[in-house]
């Protein structure tokens, strides 16, 4: 069985091939600590869903070692399924009413009836399903269905929760509320593996993120670490107080070409922008040049990278 020293999720050199030729997951390794929310990011077809399918015992790995709470997924799948919760990316419902969905799910998970009753009330309120509680699932909107799908999973206790794009179709207020709810659950010890296409969400909720591409882990760390490591490309834009002459434009073009750290730039009539890594140095050079040419600055902007930038940077490599 598990010990507190084991990582909650351990994936070592996981390989999964469906046809024996191309690996959907290709030597993936990562671990998730207890009570951690770990974001698994990747393009469509990167191997996220296959990884989750292996972790949740739906498909066996081709090779590698995968364990949850110290329990080997291949050797003891039945035990694994008793300690995990899964919110699939696709809809998954019994076409009964919202309330009955909670009741049936609680019964399936052997949750005591009184607990089901209390949790149903709590979850219906928290996930803003009160008005539709007696409606049948097919009458709900996409966002309401997704809320029900996420809420229903919390009817039972679990050690590890897999959330595959859980906020699709939710409005921003509900999305934030659901993320906060999930975050609180993690603070109480629940381990969560979270996939999303909305990288702001991962930035907001995950302690660490792993970016996978073509079945391999290509970057891993906290959001800030990744931004520093991969997303260091910043965009500097400087607006001048007057239009630049042709010779001034030419001078600034020459300056930009001479600075190694500039990856891309443009010099217009009254705006200069540049992208690169050491943009503070570039800004200093531009300011010095402008002062020398008696050009006043109207506005300076330096965009900090987002997780989106990191993601794009990493998967483009």
């Amino acid at each position, binding site marked *: 069985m598990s010990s507190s020293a084991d990582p909650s999720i351990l994936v070592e050199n996981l390989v999964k091939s469906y046809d024996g030729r191309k690996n959907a997951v290709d030597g993936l390794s990562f671990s998730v600590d207890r009570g951690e929310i770990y974001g698994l990011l990747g393009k469509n077809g990167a191997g996220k869903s296959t990884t989750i399918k292996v972790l949740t015992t739906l498909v066996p790995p081709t090779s590698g070692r995968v364990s949850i709470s110290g329990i080997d997924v291949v050797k003891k799948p039945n035990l694994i399924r008793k300690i995990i919760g899964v919110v699939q990316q696709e809809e998954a419902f019994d076409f009964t009413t919202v309330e009955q969905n909670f009741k049936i799910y609680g019964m*399936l998970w052997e949750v005591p009836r009184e607990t089901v009753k209390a949790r149903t009330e709590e979850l219906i309120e928290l996930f803003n399903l009160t008005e539709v509680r007696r409606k049948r699932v097919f009458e709900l909107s996409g966002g309401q269905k997704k809320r029900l799908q996420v809420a229903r999973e919390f009817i039972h206790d679990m050690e590890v929760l897999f959330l595959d794009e859980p906020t699709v179709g939710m409005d921003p207020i509900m999305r934030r509320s659901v993320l906060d709810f999930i975050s609180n659950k993690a603070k109480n010890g629940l381990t969560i593996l979270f996939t999303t296409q909305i990288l702001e969400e991962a930035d907001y909720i995950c302690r660490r993120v792993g970016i996978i591409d073509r079945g391999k882990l290509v970057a891993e760390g906290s959001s800030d670490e990744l931004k520093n490591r991969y997303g260091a490309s910043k965009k500097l834009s400087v607006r001048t107080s007057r239009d630049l002459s042709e010779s001034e434009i030419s001078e600034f073009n020459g300056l930009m070409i001479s600075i190694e750290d500039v990856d891309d730039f443009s010099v217009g009539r009254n705006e200069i922008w540049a992208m690169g890594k050491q943009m503070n140095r570039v800004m200093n050079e531009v300011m010095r040049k402008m002062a020398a040419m008696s050009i006043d600055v109207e506005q300076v902007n330096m965009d900090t990278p987002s997780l989106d930038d990191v993601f794009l940077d990493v998967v483009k490599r």
Partner: protein
Amino acid sequence: MRIPAFIRLTIRNVRVNTDPGTMLFMLGLPALYLVVLGIMFQGIIPSIDINSSSISYTKFLAPGIVGMQAFTAGNIGGGMLWSDRRWGMFEQLLVGPFRRSEYLLGIMVVSIIFSLGGSAIMIALAISISGSFAFTAVSAGYLILILVAGTIFFSCLFLIISIVVRTMQAYNTITIFLFFTLDFASTAFYPLTSKTPLALRAVSDINPLSYVANVVRDAMVYGVSAQTGYQTLIVLLLMFVFFGISLYLYRNVQTGL
């Protein structure tokens, strides 16, 4: 007290399928056949004479309708795999505290419950329309055996369809075709006589529902004979063959469509 996983799945299957639409299909339609067709045709067909025995049309029809319960329940049970795959619940249940075998058992058990429950209701309705039936311990045993075997056979048939078919249109077309072909080209509604068209007789002869209906009719009306045992054996054999096929296909079925 812990409830075994397959029983929890059976309870879920019962709850999910006790919606008005399913109930109408399972009980309303056969009851309508029994009451409307039985009473209307009784005026046209005063009696059915087979093997020097003469019975009223409603008495003939009632066992056919009871036999149809095995088919209807098998359709509902086996079809659950298709709808669970279509609506994501198959995958959701398989990542829960259940094994594939328990899911399958849950489907079989709910089919049998629906079949036996529906049959009991139809028998009660038939008794209220056409009077009592001559049950003995042996005939009751045959009745239960053929309903269980028939239900498992039809559940397996629809499980196979659920596994093989990928689109809703194809699934609906096949089930509707089977529903009409098996129901109306069987001995459930009318006897096979020398006047029966050859094509209809041929279809009816290879139609498993005919065998189920015949055994139910023997158990309820004519009495059990060697022929009853022979026809029961055929249904049991079909049940084992189709169970094997469906099990083979089910082991590797993908969770989604």
